[in-house]
């Protein structure tokens, strides 16, 4: 039994019994209620559990409980070969499988020190950016639902469906692709793929505007998110935030720019950060805006990649794929910019086996979510929902 020091709770004493908070002594002035939000709750995006102490509508303490989706990724990794880990990485951040595969592939390639054909790199960037758009669409759509707007969600899913069909056409699966392999790709993209992607880009641009008008600009939406859940930049860095979350706090930090990999250095794109005009820096609205603007940047990247991509002639997507992945002994920490932030892999190889000795996934959601406890103190329940939504967690990655 451990007594918790929970600020702002007056003389209410709380203890933890097993996995639950128990109110020991009630302060009669404000009686706190222990409220379990999740694991089955519409706004916890899966199976997160938030244990809240509430005083009326005010949340005085909210603690995330994880592990309801702990799927033993790291244990599985230690038991399968390097290439066979790829499908498991898909299942980390299942909304952005391509990006996870990408991060894993470049990490192992770093360890293996191999050269990748240029066309592969471009295809990887295209599919990863497409998947980033798809993932942001889900983030934005579900954020709409969290705040009570249902229609934007369906519009987002409608457009996401197109991306999924494009990716399925390329890779054979809709969500969990196993497409980016260590050293290459599973297959080359279909012949008409580039054309169809360009068509998608032209199709999608007006849709983002519509979405922006329907949701982001809506006064109610702005009022619900502006100034809520403010995270100062230095604390955000200290929390290890990355990706749109960190950029939402005004730090211009994007691994595609700041620790470039693949062909990103050759591409021209902006790293959107809030300017404090429409939103307060570091609040939920900023994070939402960053995501909304990033979709536009991804479209730009896709266009450039399709322009610059070498032709398919004489191209073999698996030409650099090693027959047997057995890296030399050593350790590596590789990372890539996922839609949710920095996805890193720490891999330790003993140089003998084809299985990693240790493969740890540093997941952005896990890290981003860890600030939840701090952010939620003193918020109203609706604001709590707005904050969780703006963190945009994917439990598969949080719990691994």
């Amino acid at each position: 039994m451990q007594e918790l020091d929970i600020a702002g709770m007056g003389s209410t004493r709380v203890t933890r019994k097993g996995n639950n908070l128990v109110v020991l002594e009630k302060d009669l002035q404000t009686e706190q209620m222990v409220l379990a939000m999740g694991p089955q709750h519409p706004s916890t995006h899966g199976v997160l559990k938030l244990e809240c102490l509430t005083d009326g509508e005010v949340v005085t303490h909210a603690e995330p409980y994880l592990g309801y989706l702990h799927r033993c990724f790291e244990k599985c990794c230690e038991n399968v070969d390097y290439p066979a880990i790829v499908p498991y990485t898909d299942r980390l951040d299942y909304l952005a499988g391509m990006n996870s595969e990408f991060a894993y592939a470049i990490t192992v390639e770093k360890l293996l020190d191999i050269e990748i054909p240029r066309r592969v790199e471009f295809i990887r960037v295209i599919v990863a950016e497409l998947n980033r758009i798809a993932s942001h669409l889900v983030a934005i759509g579900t954020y709409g639902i969290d705040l009570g707007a249902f229609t934007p969600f369906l519009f987002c899913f409608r457009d996401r469906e197109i991306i999924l069909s494009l990716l399925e056409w390329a890779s054979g699966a809709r969500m969990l692709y196993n497409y980016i392999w260590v050293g290459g790709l599973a297959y080359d993209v279909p012949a008409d793929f580039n054309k169809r992607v360009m068509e998608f880009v032209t199709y999608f641009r007006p849709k983002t505007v519509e979405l922006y008008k329907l949701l982001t600009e809506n006064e109610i939406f702005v009022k619900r998110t502006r100034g809520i859940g403010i995270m100062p930049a230095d604390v955000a860095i200290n929390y290890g935030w990355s990706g749109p979350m960190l950029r939402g706090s005004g730090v211009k930090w994007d691994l595609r720019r700041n620790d470039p990999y693949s062909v990103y250095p050759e591409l021209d794109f902006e790293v959107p950060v809030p300017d404090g005009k429409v939103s307060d820096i570091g609040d939920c609205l900023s994070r939402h805006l960053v995501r909304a603007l990033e979709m536009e940047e991804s479209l730009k990247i896709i266009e450039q990649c399709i322009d610059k991509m070498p032709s398919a002639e004489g191209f073999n997507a698996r030409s650099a794929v090693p027959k047997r992945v057995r890296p030399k002994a050593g350790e590596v920490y590789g990372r890539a910019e996922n839609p949710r932030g920095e996805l890193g892999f720490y891999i330790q190889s003993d140089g003998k086996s084809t299985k990693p000795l240790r493969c740890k996934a540093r997941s952005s959601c896990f890290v981003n979510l860890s600030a939840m406890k701090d952010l939620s103190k003193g918020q109203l329940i609706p604001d709590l929902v707005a904050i969780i939504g703006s963190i945009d967690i994917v439990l598969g990655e949080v719990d691994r």
Partner: protein
Amino acid sequence: MSEYFRNIKTGAVTIATGLGITLKHFFNAVHRKGDAGVDDVDYFRQVDGLVTLQYPREVIPTPKNGRYRLYNAIEDCIGCGQCERACPISCITIETIKVAQDDMALCGKTSDGQQKKFWVPVFDIDVAKCMTCGMCTTVCPTECLVHTPVSDFSEFDRSNMLYHFGNLTRLEAESKRNKLAEIQAKAQAEKERKAAEAAVAAAQAPTQEEPKSDGE
């Protein structure tokens, strides 16, 4: 005070914009999107309207390379076991029996003319476990193990999802196994005899390697 009225105004204006958008969609509902798949040239030329696909009535074919149900054209399977080794989650179980020399013809060739050297009495795929990653199909040398784009195959009973592709019935397998064992026993006996002979005649060339059959 002006703040107060400005708030009311922005609220009204943005709400009206939103309402306009949804109303546009509402009136657009007279159109329905066509059923071209994304691999179709016309995909992005379809009208903007209701996008719903009425699945059991209308179907957009899944792409050719779609990875859904696994299917093994067992006639082409040479029993090499690569797929089994490649599967990260071991949902394929293979048992092979070495084909006896005189059965070679019976066992047949793959469609590209390769002689099959193994009977595959057990080729079980547990599609309930399979994560459709495609590792097995990419390693298959004869491309007999493929993912079909058929995805809709739910079951009331999970045991129905264990697919048996083996090309021998249990009885046949039994007899083949016995036959092989016989041959092996004979070969063994031969070997022993030879070994004995060798022991007798100290300098003699070693016999051919023993064909060994293993369980899998």
